[in-house]
């Protein structure tokens, strides 16, 4: 028996015009970006006079992956931030809570609905991905890796939205706070890292910073899903160490995406428990 909340969400979301329109806009954005990329590169080749460079396919792939990620991160909080508070505003939450339906099922239903939506967006973009395969240079394994990373990140973002929607009575508050948290994750961590490095350098702690460069980076940016994603391209430790100009670290086997995924899983679990607590708390 399918989770009733998931079933309802899928049914109503797929039925409205909103979903196909959003899907269209999403695909349009991706195609414009890809087209622009081709146009710009076309001009370069006019002067270079070479044949088609397979590295270009990889660049397109990267572009799609990053673009998709940005779009997902922008859309997803709004999707789940209304999950519980929306039910509350519609006054349907009490109707579920006064049944013997487990609150875990409500949470699971809402998160899986969000993931289904993410999956839809990923599937919808596969035609673009197939261009990349056409030219080669990217293995299916790499794509699967990125998609899995997407999903784990999507779980975290869904949980953030879901918790906010359970924590705050009003939909508006819930949405605003969700995006604030997203801002802290994506931008706040980078700013904090920058500020930390600045303070350290003004204090003359350069030795410390150089010695633990990788650890500091992981510590500050490990929570940042963007960093986790970027590390797929930076080539994990090797790439980053080259980029940061550091020689060694005992943590070099720890890859940024591992930190990111661990963070996602742990924080998601905590948020789910807190959400459950919010749902069952009666006063």
């Amino acid at each position, binding site marked *: 028996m399918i989770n009733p909340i998931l*079933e*309802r969400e899928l049914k109503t979301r797929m*039925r409205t015009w909103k979903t196909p329109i959003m899907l269209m806009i999403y695909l349009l954005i991706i195609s414009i970006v890809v087209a622009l990329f081709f146009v710009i590169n076309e001009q370069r080749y006019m002067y270079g006079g070479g044949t088609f460079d397979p590295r270009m396919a990889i660049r397109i792939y990267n572009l799609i992956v990053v673009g998709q990620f940005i779009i997902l991160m922008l859309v997803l909080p709004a999707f789940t931030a209304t999950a519980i508070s929306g039910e509350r505003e519609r*006054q349907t939450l*009490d109707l579920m809570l*006064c*049944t013997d*339906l487990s609150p875990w099922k409500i949470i699971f239903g809402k998160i899986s609905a969000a993931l289904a939506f993410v999956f839809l967006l990923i599937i919808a973009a596969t035609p673009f991905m197939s261009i990349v395969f056409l030219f080669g240079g990217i293995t299916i394994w790499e794509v699967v890796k990125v998609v899995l990373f997407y999903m784990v990140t999507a779980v975290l973002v869904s949980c953030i939205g879901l918790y906010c929607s359970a924590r705050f009575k009003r939909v508006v508050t819930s949405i605003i706070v969700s995006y604030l948290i997203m801002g802290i994750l994506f931008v706040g961590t980078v700013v904090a890292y920058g500020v930390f490095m600045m303070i350290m350098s003004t204090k003359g702690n350069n030795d410390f910073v150089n010695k633990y460069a990788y650890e500091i980076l992981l510590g500050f940016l490990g929570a940042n899903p963007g960093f986790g994603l970027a590390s797929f391209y930076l080539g994990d430790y090797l790439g980053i160490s080259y980029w940061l100009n550091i020689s060694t670290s005992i943590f070099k086997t720890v890859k940024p995406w591992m930190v990111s995924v661990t963070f996602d899983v742990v924080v998601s679990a905590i948020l789910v428990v807190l959400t459950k607590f919010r749902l069952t708390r009666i006063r």
Partner: protein
Amino acid sequence: MIKVENLVKRYGKFTAVDDLSFSIGKGEIFGFVGSNGAGKTTTMKVAAGLLKADAGTIFVNGHDVHKHRTEAKRSIGYMPDFFGVYDDLKVTEYMNFYCGVHKIPVADRKKTIDSLVEVVNLSDKREAYVDDLSRGMKQRLCLARSLIHNPELLILDEPASGLDPRARVEFREIIKELKDMGKTILISSHILHELSEVCTSIGIINGGKMIAIGTVSEIQEKLNHLSRVKVKVCSDFSLAASILKEQPLVTGLVEANGFIEFSFSGEVQQKADLLKSLVNKEVRVTHFEETAGSLESIFMHLTNEEGEEK
């Protein structure tokens, strides 16, 4: 079936339900009457497990609704004082969703939905969007929803409010039908006569306290005993008022539009004596009338009165 014992519920410092006790036997229909803000919804929400009592207990089918919430919930069909509908769903889909919530096996759902939709007379609206239903229909749909898991106890919070007279009658017929099905029903209203026809017993709540409880005829008796008297005097207004206030049988005295109005809970003779005492004290009475208090106005008075005494 349901037993409420010394229930207290506070919102901050405000006591919404104050030491409320009553019980409803199996198959009974209990009318829970009180003006707006009396504490009906609060009591029902505690019973439905949506609010926590500050003191007291509620047992449903032998289960403490707080300690054994899940078991108690299975016996309760709760219909709140709001619709709570997803308007992007059709009637059958709406019902199907709550069948899922109540873990009704997929194979049984069609039968369940069909029979419930039939009970609430929505058979011809099965494929309509919930959004397009009239208020009365939505109300009935919500009732059907609260029946999905075949609960023994129904808690209906002002199900007839906001309905036009025809829809009210229709709703009342459905309640009678449910009664015949053997359901125990706790139904609230701020209009007494709306319930007197369908209920086996009635409790009147005001300011969070139960001020009268009994069978319909007992309550009627109690109310009939009270009459509302209107007096007009020339110029001796305050004197008349003070004399009347001293009378033990006079309650709920108000002065309005040049009239003094009060409730009198005595026999006809005592009423005559009351007029006599006014005249004896040299009050010049120009008008002395017993108003034909409808049940409701008496009830309004009853609740107001007890409220003032607090």
